[in-house]
C-alpha cells in the first residue's frame, strides 16, 4: 500500500463486480466449488433427513436410503420441538439476550479498534497484543472469579448475577478481544490519506470515526455482527451460568439442549431442533450478505 493514494469522492460508487471477468479456468473454478459445496452439504443433508425420520428408522438404514421407497418421513420431531412448553418465551429471550449483546460488542470494539489503529500512544502495540491474547482465556476458568466478583459487587444495591444485564455484560466482555482484533485490522488497512486530509479539513477524530472509518468498514462490521450474533444465539454455558435457575429467562439454546432425557434418549429431536434454531442466524447472515459488496471502502486502495 505504498502507492500514492487519494481520498476518493465517496458516494460515487458504482456496482462493478458483475462486469465480465477473464474466464480463465472457469470450469475448474466451478468444479472445485461444487465439490466443496457437496462435501460441506453432506452432513447437513444427513441431519435434515434424520430430522424427518424416527430414531428407529435412522438407526436401521442410512439417510441416503430415505429417498427411495418406502418413504418413512414424519414431522413428529418438529411437532415435539415446537410443542415444548415455554419455547415461544425462549425464542423471545434469545432475541432479548442476543441483540443488545451484539450492539454493545460492535460499538465498544469499534471505539477501541479505532484508537489502536489511528491514535498514537505509548505501549500501544503491547496493549493491543494483550487484548488479542485474551482470546486464549478459556471461558470456563473465568466463570467462578467473575461470579464471585458480582456476588460481592452490587452497585446501588443492584444484584447483577441472575439477570439479563449479567448476560449482556458477560457476552460483551467475552466477545471484545476478537471484535477489537478484527476491526483494528480493518481500520488499519484504510488509507492514511483519508484521515490526514480529513484532519486538514478540520474534522475532529470523532467526526473522522463516524463519517469515514465506520462507513468504509461496513463489510468488516457486517461480518462481526454475523458472528457475534451467532455465538451469542447458540451459546449455552454463559446463559445458564449468568442467568441462573430462572426458566422464564432462558434462551432457545437452553430449551433445545434439554430435549433429550438425562440418559440421552430422544436424540432425534435434536436434529429437528438444529433447524429450528438455525433459522434466525441464517436470516441474519443472508440479510447482511448484501453489505459484502466490493466498493464500499470507496476504492480505498485505488492506485
Amino acid at each position: 500500500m505504498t502507492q500514492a493514494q487519494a481520498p476518493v469522492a465517496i458516494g460515487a460508487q458504482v456496482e462493478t463486480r458483475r462486469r465480465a471477468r477473464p474466464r480463465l479456468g472457469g470450469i475448474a473454478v466451478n468444479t472445485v466449488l461444487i465439490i466443496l459445496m457437496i462435501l460441506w452439504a453432506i452432513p447437513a443433508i444427513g441431519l435434515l433427513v434424520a430430522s424427518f425420520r424416527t430414531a428407529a428408522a435412522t438407526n436401521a438404514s442410512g439417510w441416503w436410503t430415505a429417498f427411495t421407497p418406502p418413504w418413512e418421513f414424519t414431522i413428529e420431531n418438529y411437532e415435539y420441538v415446537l410443542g415444548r412448553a415455554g419455547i415461544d418465551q425462549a425464542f423471545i429471550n434469545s432475541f432479548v439476550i442476543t441483540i443488545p449483546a451484539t450492539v454493545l460488542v460492535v460499538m465498544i470494539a469499534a471505539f477501541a479498534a479505532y484508537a489502536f489503529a489511528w491514535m498514537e500512544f505509548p505501549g500501544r502495540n503491547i496493549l493491543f497484543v494483550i487484548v488479542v491474547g485474551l482470546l486464549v482465556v478459556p471461558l470456563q476458568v473465568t466463570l467462578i472469579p467473575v461470579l464471585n466478583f458480582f456476588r460481592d459487587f452490587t452497585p446501588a444495591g443492584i444484584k447483577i448475577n441472575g439477570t439479563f444485564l449479567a448476560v449482556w455484560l458477560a457476552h460483551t466482555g467475552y466477545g471484545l478481544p476478537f471484535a477489537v482484533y478484527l476491526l483494528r485490522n480493518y481500520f488499519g488497512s484504510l488509507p492514511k490519506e483519508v484521515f490526514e486530509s480529513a484532519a486538514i479539513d478540520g474534522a475532529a477524530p470523532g467526526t473522522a470515526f463516524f463519517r469515514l472509518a465506520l462507513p468504509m468498514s461496513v463489510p468488516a462490521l457486517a461480518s462481526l455482527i454475523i458472528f457475534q450474533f451467532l455465538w451469542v444465539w447458540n451459546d449455552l454455558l454463559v446463559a445458564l451460568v449468568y442467568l441462573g435457575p430462572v426458566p422464564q429467562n432462558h434462551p432457545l439454546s437452553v430449551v433445545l439442549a434439554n430435549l433429550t432425557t438425562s440418559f440421552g434418549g430422544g436424540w432425534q429431536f435434536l436434529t429437528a431442533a438444529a433447524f429450528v434454531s438455525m433459522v434466525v442466524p441464517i436470516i441474519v447472515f443472508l440479510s447482511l450478505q448484501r453489505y459484502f459488496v466490493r466498493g464500499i471502502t470507496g476504492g480505498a486502495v485505488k492506485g
Partner: protein
Amino acid sequence: MFDAILENRLLAAILVVIAVPIVLVGYIYLVEFVVGLFRRTTAGRIRPWLWLAPALVFLGVFLVYPTIATVIRSFQNRRGDQFVGLENYQWFFTQNDTLIALRNNVIWVIFLPLLVVGIGLLVAVLVDRVRFEGAAKTVIFLPMAISFVAAGVIWRFMYELDPKIGTLNATLNAVGAEPRAWLVEQPQNNFFLIIVGVWLLTGFAMVILSAGLKGISTELLEAARVDGANEVQVFRRIVLPLLMPTIAVIATTIIIYALKTFDVVYTMTNGNFNTDVIANTMYQMLFNNGQPGRSAAIAVILFVAIVPVMIVNIRRFQEQEAVR
C-alpha cells in the same frame, strides 16, 4: 409479579438497543468535547485512553481479573488454602494422559488453521467469480449455525462403524473396501476429529476473508490485468499481499481456537482412544474432579503457549505501520 418481570425485561432490552448506542456515541462526543478543552499535545495524550476506556473496563472485569485469579490459583492446592509452588505444573508434565493431550493439541494447532484458512481462502477467492456466490457461501457457512449438540449427532452417523448407516463406511463399502473405525484407529482418529472442526470453522474464515477481499480495489486488479498479468499472478502479487493482514487475523484466531479446542473432542470421544486435548482435561479437573488448582495450571500453560503467536503479531503490526 411475573408480568412485571417480563415487562421490565422487554423495557430493558429496548432501552439497551436504543439507548446504549446513543449513550456510547454521546460518550465519544463528550470525550472529544472534554479533550478539546486541553492543549493539542495534552489532548493527544489522553484521547486514546478515553476511547479505549469502555473496552478496557469490560476486558478487565471479564478476562483480566479472572486471568490473574487463575494464575494465583494455579500455585495453590485443591482447596485453595495453601500455596504449593509448582506442584500443579509438575503434575501436568508428568502424567502420561496429559502429555498425550499436549501432543494432540500440537496436531490440532498445526492442521486446523492450515485447513481452515486454506479452504476458507480458496472459497472466498473462487466464489467471487461464479454466479452462485450466495448459494456457495451459505452452504459453507451453514455448519457455523448448527448447534454443537446436533453437529455431534450427525458426525457420529458420518463416522458410524456399521456401513448400513455410517456415511463414510457406506462409501467405502460401495467401492468394496472394509469399514473403518474412524474415531478409534490411532493416531489418525485425531485427524477425523479435526475434520469436524474444519467443517464447522471454514465458514468463519470464508466470511471474514471475503469481507477483506471486497476491500481490494477492482481498479487495481484491472490495471494489473491490463498490464498482462494472468489470474495466478494477480492473486499472488496483489490479492495475497493485500489480504495478508486479514489472513493473519484468521490464522491467529484459529490457532487459539485449536489450542483451547474442547467441544468437538468432548462430544465425539471425550478424549478416549488417545484423542484427549488439554482443554478437556482442564474442564474435567475444574467441574468434575474438584481440582481447580490443576485446572488453573492448564489454563496458564495455554496463556504461555500463545506468546510466540503474539510476538509474530507484534512484528506484523510494526511492519504494517512502517509502510503505512
